[in-house]
């Protein structure tokens, strides 16, 4: 009988009020932790999306001049002038009228890190779009701590007559201490105008224009490759003003990223569709992460066929890059069926290699559940120990 009473005390928490107190404390701690995590998650999520990292380039819109035609912090070669006629933003932009003359600035950088380089550029050069048509440079030199150039990245672009956003994601080589940003005209008769140059470190998302908010003059999303049937869509986007709508099966929407071997990338994307399945196969969407070598050959490919539902839902795919990888291509496509696929708010992150273990990633992604789960497990283990040890 005593045993039973003891048991009752233990499990009903009545042993001089201590067990009850302990239980209350555990309950409060667990609940508190869950609430904090939940709120934290929401806030961190908001911050992750809203916070843009700092632009490393100073006087990036050329508003401050230290001498005529000489913007502060920038070194310029011959043929560069300040233009106040039609800047993209502010009061002035820079105009290059001579080819292979640079406007440059050096900024400190870290090795093996991702940065985005973007610039608004326009030109009045008329070049036919043939083999050698890129009329401008968004050139980058990667410098070591002695100031030697480790690697040159010419960044050829073909600029058209209206202001447009150009750029790319870069991955700094090992030993990089500085990046020299060099803007220049490459070929043709006429001038190139530059404004709003930005070099920003990337950490939360390695994709540019990941929510398709920036469209070019033809309504296509900047930095994205689009196949037939893909277009920007303004009805019911997941966030912002636009999303992408794909209507044709097996037509790609893609973007490239420079990548290092043995790196782990996770792509998260939001999808929805109104595709009606025909037959047993209802997986209407496919997402690919292709690892490419320096010759552009696909050396590894992760593919997920998935069902994009009627309302927005997040999907995830990941890849661990093999040796010889120099780039990763992100591809989304509609697989089959009648109807459209909508895509919005993509995110690619490079995560530490140990997060290849799915469970570790899952714990980070769903903290409230795992706090609940491990707390429950812990409570049961403690109860078991108490039962075993209790005489």
């Amino acid at each position, binding site marked *: 009988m005593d045993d039973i009473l003891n048991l009752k005390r233990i499990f009903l928490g009545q042993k001089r009020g201590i067990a009850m107190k302990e239980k209350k404390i555990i309950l409060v701690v667990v609940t508190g932790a869950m609430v904090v995590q939940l709120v934290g998650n929401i806030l961190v999520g908001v911050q992750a999306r809203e916070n843009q990292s700092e632009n490393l380039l100073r006087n990036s819109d050329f508003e401050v001049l230290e001498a005529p035609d000489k913007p502060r912090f920038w070194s310029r070669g011959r043929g560069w002038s300040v233009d106040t006629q039609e800047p993209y933003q502010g009061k002035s932009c820079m105009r290059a009228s001579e080819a292979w003359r640079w406007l440059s600035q050096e900024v400190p950088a870290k090795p093996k890190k991702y940065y985005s380089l973007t610039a608004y550029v326009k030109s009045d050069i008329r070049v036919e779009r043939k083999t050698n048509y890129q009329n401008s440079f968004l050139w980058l030199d990667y410098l070591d701590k002695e100031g030697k150039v480790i690697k040159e990245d010419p960044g050829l672009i073909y600029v058209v007559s209206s202001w447009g956003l150009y750029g790319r994601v870069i991955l700094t080589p090992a030993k990089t201490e500085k990046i020299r940003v060099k803007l220049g005209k490459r070929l043709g008769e006429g001038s190139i105008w530059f404004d709003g140059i930005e070099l920003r470190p990337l950490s939360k998302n390695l994709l540019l224009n990941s929510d398709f908010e920036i469209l070019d003059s033809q309504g296509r999303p900047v930095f994205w490759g689009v196949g037939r049937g893909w277009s920007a869509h303004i009805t019911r986007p997941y966030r912002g003003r636009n999303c992408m709508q794909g209507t044709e099966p097996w037509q790609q929407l893609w973007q490239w990223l420079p990548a290092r071997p043995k790196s782990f990338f996770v792509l998260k994307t939001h999808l929805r569709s109104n595709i009606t399945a025909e037959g047993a196969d*209802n*997986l209407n969407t496919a997402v690919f992460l292709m690892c490419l070598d320096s010759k552009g050959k696909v050396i590894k490919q992760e593919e997920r066929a998935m069902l994009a539902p009627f309302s927005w*839902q997040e999907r995830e*795919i990941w890849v*661990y890059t093999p040796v010889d990888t120099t780039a990763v291509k992100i591809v989304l496509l509609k697989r089959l069926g009648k109807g459209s696929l909508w895509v919005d708010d993509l995110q690619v992150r490079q995560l530490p290699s140990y997060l290849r*273990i799915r469970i570790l990633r899952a714990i980070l992604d769903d903290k409230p559940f795992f706090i609940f789960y491990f707390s*429950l*497990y812990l409570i049961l283990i403690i109860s078991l120990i108490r039962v075993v040890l209790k005489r």
Partner: protein
Amino acid sequence: MLIKKLFPQENRRIYLKWMLIGLLIRLAFMPFTLHGDLVGINWFAYCLVHQGHIPLRRMNYPPLAYFTAYFFQLLFRPVMPLFEQWSDSVLPWFSGPHLFRYVFLLKSYYLIFDLGVAFLLPRLIADNQRKLLAFKLWMLNPIVILVSYMQGQFDVLSTFFVILSLYYVAAKKFCRSLFFLGIGAALKQFPLLFLIPALTVLGRTKAVKFKLLLCGIVPYILLMYPYWGSPTFRKAVTTVAGMDEFVLYFHFDLGNVDKAYVYIVGYTIILALAYFHSRAKDSKEAFETLWRVELIILLWLYTTIFFLPQYFVWVTPLLILFSVENKKVRTLYWLQIICVFVHTLHWDRYLPDLFTPLDPAFFPHIPSPFYLINRYYSVAKFMGIFRSVFSGICLWMIYLILREFFLVKKEVLR
């Protein structure tokens, strides 16, 4: 108070200990293992409720199974809001957010029925030591854990209702017993195999038999009727989701188109046995007869048909009732469990693939036990040997039960 009510007074702390151990093992697997069966039942439950039908060839269970799954989906909706946008295919689940949370929740209600069996079993046994042993054997049964919490099959629900039906036989509430047998059959149809023996053993007169039949069959029919118009559903019911193929496969050609189905022959003999032993003096005796007949029916089923691992959950509580009586039978019980694990080799990557949610890049690529065994010895022969051992054990157990029957009969005649 709850603990006091649930556990027998004797050894209450030991019960608690084994319950906690059993729960810890179950919880360890619940969120981290996934099989297409869990995906299928839950996705089609959603389809049945929202679209009124299940895609052709995909309705494998009676409607109550889907309604039960949907009921718990509704219950968990606030914490799994995106479930309705998942798919019937297991692959998209791997890339969906909160996979572990969803898998955990979708299996969590099995615990209610699983613990229900655990608490009912001791109530069917008189001896205190055997009560505890039965409780332990159920809580630690690897097949129940594998099927319910790794594979995500809901056989434990039907099994619970079968045991509840037996509990009411012992409590002399026969109508209630048949009612719960009908509910069990409305989840998975195997309890229908026990309907005739139950009527034979429990109904003393034709009128009582008819009343009991109504108690058992009415809930079953009421739950089936609204879907009877669907050809898919009709086929699922009449073929027991293709199980008839398994049951009728082992047969003898008797010439022309004449056939003798081995399972049916044996089942008929078992019914005859129940009929000739139907003169139970009281509910206790009726209970003792009935669970043994039900055990023989299932043992004969496993002996003569190709079965799936989840079928073994049906027999587990009955086997436990049988094995707590005899230490040597317990050895056979554990041997059977080993044989069922070997039997899972039929599905090649069944065991390693269950862990795919933990790491979809790793587990699908580790060598399966099938592959490893096949490197040294023909896996077909290997499985066949264990299958034969399993059938041999089942037959020996049937013999032991029959011998008990005939001994009792002899004593009665004396």
